[in-house]
């Protein structure tokens, strides 16, 4: 089985070695464009190498001076200052602190909390203490600067210390810009301008928004975890996606206006232009069946296999219809609607709901609930935000028609708090 490695990393040889031991053949993508082409046929692992840049609090104290200064002056590594230091930075800082301490320089590590749950960190703390570094857990901290010295006053809640140092090391992360280029070419979800993966419960380490494309930032990942992550990627690649899901989108090429809307909104990069048909087509193995494309398609050219048009049976006045996202509300519905006379329409994602369905439901039901996942819990990234916007739009429109917008409810729920859904429906 072939796997494509894209991006640069000093750990690349190691990644390749692990992959080979798992029975993969590695091919290297030369450019983002190359990676894009290869990603059609093979899974891709994008390597990033974000660096942790240990910089001094000011230019005056350039870090390179560290070796040139008198041995007696202490170096202070400051963590959690301004904001919490991310856990992947911690081992890197500790390693740097150990090596500094071993060069017979007093070292202080100031942290708001000592975190040891990260694999390998306990040992580093131990090494640091052995090398003579003092670790201070602070509650309050203030810094006074003069030309060549920083006066740091720290309190751990019981005692107060004052440290004078010319070497105050703060920590920041320098993202791998090249990896971002690759990410754009591979059309995986990025956040802000330069973060490839956000903390989402449904993304296991290394996974991205696109199936078959993985992202390993070897600069940030703790080395023990690298191997485990690659193992789990290898395991995943051996699975059949067919067994995983039933619903997928399909494009009716005769209706497609080739407007690229679906291409732009698909969170999983599952659509591509089919030039010969002058229409979009769904890359079946990448489609997760969320239905966002079907909801936004202005030509109604996209349908979902397994789910036809959301059929709404005529309800009776006084009855409630709940559009329930399969990932959250639909699971909670059994418990939540035990005592409520409500009809339930299961939808694959909040994003698959269009205004027409909401309006049509209002025609026959006296109350319509749209129940979806919390925004950042949405497996399809912005599906639940989209549903909220649809609801807002329809509410505004029906308000102008003289229909009570209060008949439409919107609630963010989880399967693990069903009474919230019940309250929304039973209002």
């Amino acid at each position, binding site marked *: 089985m072939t796997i494509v490695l894209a991006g640069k990393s000093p750990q690349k040889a190691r990644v390749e070695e692990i992959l080979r031991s798992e029975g993969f053949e590695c091919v290297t993508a030369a450019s983002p464009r190359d990676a894009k082409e290869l990603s059609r046929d093979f899974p891709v692992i994008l390597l990033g190498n974000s660096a942790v840049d240990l910089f001094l609090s000011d230019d005056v104290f350039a870090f390179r001076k560290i070796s040139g200064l008198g041995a007696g002056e202490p170096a202070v590594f400051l963590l959690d200052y301004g904001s919490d230091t991310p856990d992947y930075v911690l081992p890197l800082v500790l390693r740097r602190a150990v090596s500094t301490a071993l060069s017979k320089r007093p070292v202080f590590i100031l942290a708001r909390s000592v975190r040891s749950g990260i694999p390998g960190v306990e040992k580093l703390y131990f090494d640091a203490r052995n090398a003579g570094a003092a670790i201070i857990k602070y509650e309050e901290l203030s810094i006074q600067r003069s030309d060549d010295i920083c006066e740091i006053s720290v309190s751990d809640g019981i005692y107060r210390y004052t440290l004078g140092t010319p070497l105050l090391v703060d920590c920041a992360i320098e993202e791998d810009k090249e990896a971002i280029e690759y990410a754009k070419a591979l059309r995986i979800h990025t956040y802000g301008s330069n973060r490839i993966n956000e903390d989402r419960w449904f993304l296991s380490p290394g996974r991205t928004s696109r199936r078959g494309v993985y992202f390993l930032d070897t600069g940030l990942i703790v080395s023990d975890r690298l191997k485990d992550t690659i193992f789990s990627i290898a395991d995943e690649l051996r699975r059949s996606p067919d067994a995983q899901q039933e619903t997928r989108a399909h494009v009716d090429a005769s*209706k497609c*206006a080739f*407007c*690229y*809307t679906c291409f*732009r*909104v698909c969170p999983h990069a599952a659509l591509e232009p089919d030039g010969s048909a002058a229409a979009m087509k769904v890359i079946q193995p990448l489609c997760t069946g969320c239905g966002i494309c079907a909801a*936004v*398609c*202005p*030509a*109604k050219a996209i349908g979902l296999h397994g789910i036809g048009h959301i059929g709404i049976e005529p309800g009776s006045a006084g009855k409630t219809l709940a559009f329930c996202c399969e990932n959250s509300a639909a699971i909670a519905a059994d418990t939540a609607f035990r005592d409520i006379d409500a009809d339930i329409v299961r939808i694959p994602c909040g994003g698959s709901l*269009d*205004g*027409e369905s909401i*309006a*049509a439901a*209002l*025609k026959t039901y006296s109350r319509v609930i749209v129940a979806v996942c919390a925004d950042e819990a949405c497996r399809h990234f912005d599906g639940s935000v989209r549903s909220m916007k649809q609801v807002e739009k*329809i509410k505004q*429109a*029906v308000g*102008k*028609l*003289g*229909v009570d917008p209060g008949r439409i409810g919107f609630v963010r729920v989880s399967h693990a708090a069903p009474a919230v859904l019940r309250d929304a429906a039973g209002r």
Partner: protein
Amino acid sequence: MIVAELKPIEEIISTIESYERVLIASCGTCVTVCMAGGEKEARELASLLRLSPSMENTEIRVVNLQRQCDREFFEAADEDAAWADAVLSMGCGAGVQFMAERYSKPVIPALNTRFIGVNRDVGYWTEVCQGCGDCVLEKTGGICPVARCSKSIFNGPCGGSSGGKCEINPDTDCAWQLIYDRLKTLGRLDRLYETIPPRDWSLSRDGGPRRIRRSDVSTEVK
């Protein structure tokens, strides 16, 4: 592409509520792509109109036309149009008028046709052309002063340009700043030294309704 947007729904209702049978006709080209008058919008509008208490006695049908600016496509709507008392066209202004020519019943616009524009992002369009009939883009680095300068001036910027933004609102780029930046990257700032003379607006709408006849294609003898 022609960019349009749906009229306020209360305005649409006020124009059609007196009819008993209304046909909504979508258009599959520009207005579909700009998400104003395609099948999705037509169906959504239909289901919203059915909710309106003042439209209770109105029956609504939807027909999806591929294009409203070529008459052959109307055939698909003929049957439904014969049934209807009025047609609500979701085409651009051209589509509405062309439908009105074909059917001897009220044809009502559902959209406001806004401008000729481009899609900059999902759900975001900006005006780039006014169809003024005499293109000066060659002189201005490919950025149109007629459509993109609030005052359509040819020797800009005016005194209202500040920090690269137009005086009418800080979200609007000053077209002349864009022209300057563009010519600068092209190394053609010399273009700016040339005073563009007052232009001939007769090629624009000011010359009256415009028409083009291609003599090599049109066999009609004048």
